[in-house]
């Protein structure tokens, strides 16, 4: 019996632990999280593994609930799709009448139906395809889905997207991006296109990345988990960064930005991808200063407050922008 008493004394009541964990998560969600809060939180976590577990559990479901956000804009997307269809249908119909009246319906049916999905700055969107594949669009992204041919072709017109593909050897899943394409071989991967640079990172399974190098030659690499291919100016290089770096590449899916010895200029550029309120780094000397940490991606104000404090620089909030200077 003494065992039982001991056991009950050591383990706190699950319900009260969960309630504290939720309270912590709620506090962390908001911008006014200070170093002191973090210390308190670390202390709370250290009290019992039950605390860490309860926190992970509440946070996990809360992060999963980001999917619910997709419910926010279904009308907008549907409207966009509808407009596109009618337009294409019209072209198809006119062409059909001119060329061969009898085949009008056939051509109409064969017209590839493109769907374009877009996100604005700061937005994110989850897509669930009919085959069960999932795509998560990051900020300021445009993605075209063509369902005409024998395979599923998706074009990343701009921005960044995470793909969780339901593999089907008969209908390969192809993502076109810039001068290249990524072919899934049963996988989860990330594709990002930014100013003439394409980045493909594979998290699970395998994916083939083909890049048209100097027009005629095609360079091809089969990427395994942990590998990242970067293509710029028609050249491709494959690296295997530290696992943590890869994990941090997906921080946006949790609405976070993670910096690790990141220059202030790069960190500001990263924040600016997600926010209308822009960070401007005034001179090149402070642009090179390095910072690290995890931030809420929309917490521009909190971030500038932190760098001001830690780097001893000025942060001038002018409403539409925050200017960082010496």
């Amino acid at each position: 019996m003494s065992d039982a008493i001991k056991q009950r004394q050591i383990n706190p009541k699950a319900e009260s632990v969960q309630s504290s964990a939720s309270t912590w998560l709620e506090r962390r969600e908001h911008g006014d999280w200070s170093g002191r809060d973090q210390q308190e939180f670390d202390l709370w976590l250290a009290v019992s593994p039950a605390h860490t577990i309860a926190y992970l559990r509440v946070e996990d479901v809360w992060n999963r609930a980001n999917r619910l956000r997709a419910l926010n804009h279904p009308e907008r997307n549907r409207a966009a799709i509808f407009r596109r269809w009618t337009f294409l249908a019209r072209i198809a119909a006119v062409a059909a009448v001119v060329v061969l009246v009898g085949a009008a319906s056939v051509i109409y049916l064969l017209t590839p139906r493109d769907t374009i999905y877009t996100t604005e700055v700061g937005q994110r969107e989850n897509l669930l395809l009919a085959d069960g594949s999932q795509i998560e669009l990051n900020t300021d992204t445009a993605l075209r889905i063509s369902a005409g041919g024998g395979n599923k072709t998706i074009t990343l017109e701009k921005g960044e997207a995470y793909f969780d593909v339901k593999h089907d050897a008969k209908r390969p899943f192809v993502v076109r991006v810039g001068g290249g394409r990524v072919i899934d071989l049963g996988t989860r991967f990330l594709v990002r296109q930014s100013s003439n640079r394409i980045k493909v990172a594979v998290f699970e399974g395998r994916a083939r990345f083909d890049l048209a190098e100097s027009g005629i030659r095609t360079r091809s690499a089969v990427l395994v988990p942990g590998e990242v291919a970067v293509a710029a100016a028609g050249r491709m290089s494959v690296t295997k960064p530290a696992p943590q770096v890869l994990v941090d590449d997906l921080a946006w899916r949790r609405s976070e930005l993670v910096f690790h010895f990141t220059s202030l200029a790069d960190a500001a550029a990263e924040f600016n991808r997600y926010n209308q309120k822009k960070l401007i780094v005034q001179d090149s000397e402070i642009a090179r200063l390095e910072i690290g940490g995890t931030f809420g991606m929309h917490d521009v104000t909190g971030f500038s407050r932190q760098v001001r404090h830690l780097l001893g620089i000025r942060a001038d909030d002018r409403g539409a922008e925050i200017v960082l200077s010496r």
Partner: protein
Amino acid sequence: MTEIADTISEMPEDWPPGTLAVRSKENVWFVAEVLPLEGLLLKFLRRGWRNENDIKDLCQDVYMEVYEVAKAEIPASAKAFVFAIARNVLVDRIRREQIVSIEAVADFETLGLATEEPGPDRTAIARQELRRLQAALDRMPKRWREAVVMRKIQEMSRPEIAVRLGIAEATVSQHLAAGMGALANLFHDDLTELKKKP
């Protein structure tokens, strides 16, 4: 410049909001492999232990033991491991309470949940997930749901929600925290009863 370099090296101490502690290998494994088993685990515990009031604590006991082991070494099969621990926790508990329930022991002997059976594939789970989240949201008390929807779907800040609902910010925090907890419970467990109503 030296001063700045020093500041940076000290940063992890109080650099908010840091999640380094939360992203260790055992934590990542726990979230990815163990938490998805919760529905099944609760079913297993309920069949072995009839007092519903103890179920959450038993579940926590299982999690804590699993977690302690994972800190040293990640078990090869999460499912087999979690249910082996769950069985031990139940046996211990039954022995301690000295109310040897033959029914309970027989029950989980025949339950056969601890074996490695192929679950639904990942994409099927992903498809279910949105439905489960919606169902969880639907079954939550209205006040909590409103706060969660405004925060999560409409991405409103705490002050904005307070203005919209005409309540204090502190109350919004309470509703949100309660909603977060309820969402986790309802997501994992269809049978959760919400005792506290706002």
